[in-house]
């Protein structure tokens, strides 16, 4: 399925990018030492306010986070998040389409102020940019119909669970599933989805994005989240040492979580509300 391939591409590009980025980081560090120029004490938040525009790097190839709609305009979870932040800051919004490979360079070279691009946190990225509080759920879990009671891996006993062969959730579930559970491994996400929709399996283990794609088709049987396998939420990226911008973004995220704005975005694009603890 396209979704799966996109996800794989995404991860693959991430890996490529890490290597490229380590290089870049080293090069930048060297340049900084050699030039020994006085540090520029610019405040990104001040710059955004005075320019009256917030430039945000968003994906355009990764639905439901960012894609191009039938009206040729960008749409998705990340785009709505960018709109929300710009509105709260009371500035205009400029969306800059990026790929997962170039989103951090765009930030580092000052072409964008924020990266809202379904980006996960890892030590390599954390070394060169700063991350806000998480703003979007991204996880693998076990999903099943609303009326099937599954609270943890042990409850899978006696159940048939569909999973895409070789995926993270396949590898993890193979470790934690009880002996009484039957894992049916399908060739791709299409097989897993079809098996769920046709009732050939009681539950499926997959990513929340795949579950969202199923829900978006409005099937008679909707997958509901049962328990989490692996969690890797998305964070907003910004340049290092921008405490004012960081505080402002985190405050907007916290407010959006408190007043239900973020839950509404999650409902719209992922078909379910924010999970506990995001």
């Amino acid at each position, binding site marked *: 399925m396209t979704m799966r391939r996109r996800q794989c591409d995404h991860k693959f590009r991430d890996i490529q990018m890490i290597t490229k980025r380590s290089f870049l980081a080293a090069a930048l560090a060297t340049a900084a030492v050699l030039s020994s120029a006085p540090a520029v004490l610019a405040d990104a938040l001040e710059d955004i306010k005075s320019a009256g525009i917030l430039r945000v790097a968003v994906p355009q190839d990764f639905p439901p986070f960012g894609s191009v709609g039938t009206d040729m305009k960008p749409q998705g979870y990340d785009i709505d998040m960018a709109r929300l932040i710009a509105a709260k800051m009371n500035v205009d919004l400029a969306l800059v389409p990026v790929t997962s490979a170039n989103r951090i360079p765009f930030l580092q070279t000052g072409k964008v102020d924020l990266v809202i691009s379904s980006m996960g946190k890892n030590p390599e990225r954390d070394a060169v940019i700063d991350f806000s509080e998480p703003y979007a759920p991204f996880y693998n879990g076990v999903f099943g119909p609303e009326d099937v009671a599954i609270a943890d891996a042990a409850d899978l006993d006696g159940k048939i669970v569909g999973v895409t*062969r*070789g995926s993270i959730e396949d590898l993890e579930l193979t470790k934690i599933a009880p002996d009484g559970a039957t894992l049916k*491994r*399908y*060739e791709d996400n299409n*097989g897993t989805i079809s098996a769920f929709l*046709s*009732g*050939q399996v009681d539950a499926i283990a997959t990513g929340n994005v795949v579950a969202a794609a199923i829900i978006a088709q409005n099937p008679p049987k909707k997958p509901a989240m049962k328990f989490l396998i692996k969690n890797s939420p998305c964070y907003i990226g910004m340049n290092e040492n921008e405490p004012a911008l960081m505080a402002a973004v985190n405050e907007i995220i916290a407010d959006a979580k408190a007043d239900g704005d973020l839950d509404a975005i999650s409902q719209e694009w992922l078909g379910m509300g924010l999970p506990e603890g995001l």
Partner: protein
Amino acid sequence: MNYQFDFAWLATYWPVFVDGIAMTIRLIVVGGVVGISLGTFCAWSRALGPAWLKPAVVTYVELIRNTPFMIQLFFIFFGLPAAGFRLTEVEAATLAMVINLGAYSAEIIRAGIEATPKGQFEAGASLAMSPIQTFRHVVLIPALQKIWPALASQVVIVMLGSAVVSQIAVEDLTYAANFVQSRTFRAFEAYFISTAIYLGLAMLLRFALLRLGHVLFPHKRAAR
């Protein structure tokens, strides 16, 4: 070629292959026996059966022979549950193989029946045999004898075609290869081994079927 073969994972994963081979054999044995029986029935209906049965048989044979096996399989496994007819993946795979082999073998056996000289039917009738007796002793056995090598080939083709049942999570030999590949990333070795096993299985199956031909039809060395 600089590739370093690594078969160390076999120590852990060989049972997966053994189970896979057992499943593939089980599928082709059940699918083969039931499928050829179905094919024989259809061949009889089409060549000698009652007029009302022929259109149904012709529709079935043409429908199956003119659509991909994988679509038939998906239709049974993913499609039929919507109509309230749910089969497990092994049942669905077996059924798909039976109807597929049934349609192809019907045409092969019909060719054998139609090659039977008319005089043979008349000879049976003149010996006061019932139509069913005539069909069995006078028509079917010589017909099967004539087309046995073609039928054996078709069974082998269906066995090799059964590789796609791994798509609906039937744990056959192809599933075993894909599974091992997804766990060890030794794609070359996993498919190398499964290729060799398929080759061995196909040759064994052909040999067994031809031997069976000699046993079933001892009077004539047609089965070759």
